[in-house]
């Protein structure tokens, strides 16, 4: 039965597709393959999600080498949730990318673009699916290297510099992660994460294990762009091709958050991370700094993509804040916000990609009166912006609800106040867009603009509708997140 191979299928499919694309050297075929791969991995992920929704675990031994000696793929409710998220975004962005890439990337590089796209997808899905520490590092590198290439394909020359910056920071992060994994291997003699978790309790108080925790934390936080390790992110998001920005903003940092959760809860266990060490306090302080400082920086950006890139840094702060509570509600908030923020930012960057199609860089002074000529795009940005603010009826509200609830449950009323105050900063930068797009008279350049091609607009609006739909019917997402949180806490105990 093919369904037995589901856990590995969404890694194998893109890895097979990539060389085929290179051999075919044809942009159209490459796009078709990339889309087919994305959608089939979505189907596989949804099937897996349904399979583990009750809290069970699917274990898959690659090449029939039994774990812990062979590489194990291990799907539980935590990574199943993430697999669905990543493949869902990839599928929508794949549809979107056809027109967007055609406009932004030179024709002869199209097939390379889609090759890198599926490799990046394979990397992200692999990180999520694998239960092996070294395999995780390998997929991390696959996704990172391919995303450096993807970012460098941006038509602005600064994309090269941004990619280089990300390369340096990302490599440092990956090195830290491999050092951490190496130290853990040294102390436990295993690379299988579940096996590692079973062997660690005997040696938790030793210095190498604590050093491993420190290396892993810093390395992963570099990849997930936790303030102040976020410096690579704004430029990378601002100058990458639109489809890449949308894809990476919605998935890459989210997968890194998953890696953090996996190491903290499954491998080390919450008692080590949060009780013996002050990780909760550190995460809390950095998250608050991200929420306020990055949001404030966002307010003063002139480049709209950079604005929302800084907003991403702030929103990642909400996710890590949820983790810092070390409670079921806090984790639920963090995990549900992974999904919700991916939808919101995916929608925003995809819509902005439609504007960038004709305009290149999107600066506030260049888009006055945009709503006159691109009403659907502008209204979509407003709706997604309301979700960033956290208006009820959008996904952002659901995240904020659980985050504030977690703060109140922890008896930290002041923290609840800070959470809502920081979301008011989002009102300021979202309303900058509203006032510019709706109240200014369109300039001559703007009045020549028109709506993005239907495929891009439809794909973007799928995400916008998702922002509203999952804001009104959050039972699936919150249920999935709560189950994932329970799994994490259950294993950690």
């Amino acid at each position: 039965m093919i369904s037995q191979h589901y856990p590995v299928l969404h890694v194998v499919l893109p890895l097979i597709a990539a060389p085929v694309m290179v051999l075919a050297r044809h942009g159209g075929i490459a796009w078709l393959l990339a889309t087919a791969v994305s959608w089939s991995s979505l189907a596989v992920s949804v099937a897996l999600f349904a399979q583990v929704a009750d809290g069970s675990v699917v274990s898959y031994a690659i090449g029939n080498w039994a774990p812990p000696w062979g590489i194990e793929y291990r799907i539980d409710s935590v990574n199943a949730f993430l697999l669905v998220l990543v493949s869902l975004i990839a599928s929508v962005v794949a549809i979107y990318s056809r027109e967007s890439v055609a406009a932004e990337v030179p024709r002869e590089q199209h097939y390379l673009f889609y090759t890198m796209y599926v490799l990046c997808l394979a990397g992200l899905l692999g990180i999520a699916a694998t239960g092996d520490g070294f395999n995780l590092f390998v997929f991390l590198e696959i996704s990172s290297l391919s995303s450096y290439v993807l970012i460098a394909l941006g038509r602005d020359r600064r994309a090269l510099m941004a990619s280089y910056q990300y390369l340096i920071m990302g490599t440092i992060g990956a090195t830290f992660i491999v050092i951490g994994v190496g130290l853990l291997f040294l102390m436990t003699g295993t690379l299988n994460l579940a096996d590692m978790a079973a062997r660690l309790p005997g040696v938790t108080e030793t210095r190498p294990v604590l050093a491993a925790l420190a290396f892993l934390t810093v390395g992963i936080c570099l990849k997930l762009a936790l303030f102040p390790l976020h410096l690579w992110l704004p430029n990378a998001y601002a100058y990458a091709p639109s489809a890449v920005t949308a894809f990476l903003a919605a998935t890459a940092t989210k997968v890194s958050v998953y890696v953090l959760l996996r190491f903290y809860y499954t491998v080390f266990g919450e008692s080590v991370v949060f009780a013996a060490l002050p990780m909760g306090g550190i995460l809390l302080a950095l998250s608050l700094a991200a929420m306020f400082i990055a949001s404030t920086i966002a307010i003063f950006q002139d480049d709209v993509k950079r604005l929302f890139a800084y907003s991403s840094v702030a929103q990642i702060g909400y996710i890590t804040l949820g983790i810092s509570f070390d409670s079921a509600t806090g984790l639920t908030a963090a995990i549900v916000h992974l999904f919700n923020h991916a939808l919101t930012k995916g929608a925003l960057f995809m819509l902005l990609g439609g504007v960038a199609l004709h305009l290149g860089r999107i600066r506030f002074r260049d888009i006055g009166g945009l709503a006159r000529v691109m009403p659907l795009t502008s209204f979509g940005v407003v709706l997604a912006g309301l979700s960033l603010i956290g208006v009820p009826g959008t996904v952002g509200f659901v995240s904020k609800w659980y985050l504030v609830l977690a703060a109140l449950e922890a008896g930290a009323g002041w923290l609840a106040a800070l959470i809502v105050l920081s979301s008011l900063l989002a009102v300021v930068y979202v309303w900058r867009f509203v006032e510019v797009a709706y109240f200014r008279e369109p300039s001559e350049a703007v009045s020549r603009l028109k709506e993005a091609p239907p495929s891009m607009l439809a794909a973007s609006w799928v995400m916008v509708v998702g922002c509203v739909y999952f804001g009104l019917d959050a039972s699936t997402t919150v249920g999935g997140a709560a189950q994932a949180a329970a799994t994490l806490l259950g294993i950690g105990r």
Partner: protein
Amino acid sequence: MSPAETLLAALAVPIAGAGLIAAAHRVPNLREGITLATAVTLFALVASLLPQVAAGDRPAITLFEVMPGIALRLVVEPLGMLFAVIASGLWIVNSLYSIGYMRGNKEAHQTRFYVCFAGALAAAIGVAFAGNLFTLFLFYEALSLITYPLVTHHGTPEAMRAGRVYLGILIGTSIALFLVAIIWTWQLTGTMEFRPGGILGGDIPNATVGLLLALYVFGIGKAAVMPVHRWLPAAMVAPTPVSALLHAVAVVKAGVFSVLKIVVYVFGVDAIAGLTSVDWLPFMAGFTIIAASIVALRADNLKRRLAYSTVSQLSYVVLAAALLTPLSIIGAALHIATHALGKITLFFAAGAIYTAAHKTEVSQLDGIGWRMPWTMGAFAVGALSLIGVPPAAGFVSKWFIISGAIDAGHMTAVAVLVASTLLNAAYFLPIVYRAFFVAPPDDGHHAHGEAPLAMVVALVLTAAGTVALFFLIDWPLALARQLASG
């Protein structure tokens, strides 16, 4: 239709109406026809629920679950019934008035105006029939957002600035305070339902109750208790029909309605009566009543004066709710209705003066009563109602609120109400006096008569309604009694 279906239809009709209005944007007469038809249909639907609610039924419908344990739910209880009848009934008159005003002033973007108006009514109905705090909050925020394009209708820098103040305060307070209060309530009680007798009763500490009440009262910025009142005068840059129906009835009443509803069904009147931590509220409301009246007294711009009068009158409802006696709760509920009729008349008159004579300041109104007798006559009726002179409806609600204050032994509240009555007279009667008894300036200004017929008909209707409500007070009184008795 079953009551639950009627309830759903009442929410769906204005939304569908908004869609139809947008579709008919090329044919103004059809578009305005749809607006009127939607308003009449909505009123008929709402009114058809009235007998059942008066008989003690509570039609309810749960639409779907939003988050585990939190559903989008509509329930009709007496106070919501009262608010919905007032808002939907006045929408008919206001639509008539809007047609005259928008055409008379050759306003731009009329389709957007009517679409947003219908959307605002849908949100107001949602607020009125909200069956739990989540649903209330959802529609409350929707109401803020959908009215933003109405406030900034003219698109001028001035309108944009006012829009910032408007949304900044309403969204800011609701997210920073109201939302926290709701989540806190949920965390403390595990429920969001509105229940007679309240849900917070029992072992919640005194200080927590006080803090929660503060979060609710100031978080519901639409109730305009000082210092979160500034959005209301700012909203006056909108076309007058918006000021009339939304910023004298639907939006502001959604605010005080929410406060009253939360005091009665979340805190529970009996549960918090006697708690020391809630004593501050009557004083805060009293301060708002007096301070806003003084600002109104000094305002020369007519709409600004009316806006501050609204701020003051809204705090009547908050004060009455805070007195926590059955009589004052009845007074609070009635005041939502009586002030609505009186104030919409005053705004209608202000808009009529602007349309016919292009005058906006009180000092310009010398002798205008002889040119616009119907308008200024209606204005006088509305003013008398707000002052509380029988046989205008304002007398009844004021009577109940003062009785409640005496009942509660709250002499400060009694003094505030008496002083405020004098202040009301002091800022309204000079306008009436100027209009009828001061000779018009001989500046050769072109002659003008009344405003377009649609507007005059509308304001005469609401003025007549103000008097009629005095004699027909039984049905709102019955609803208010149900509210007060739980």
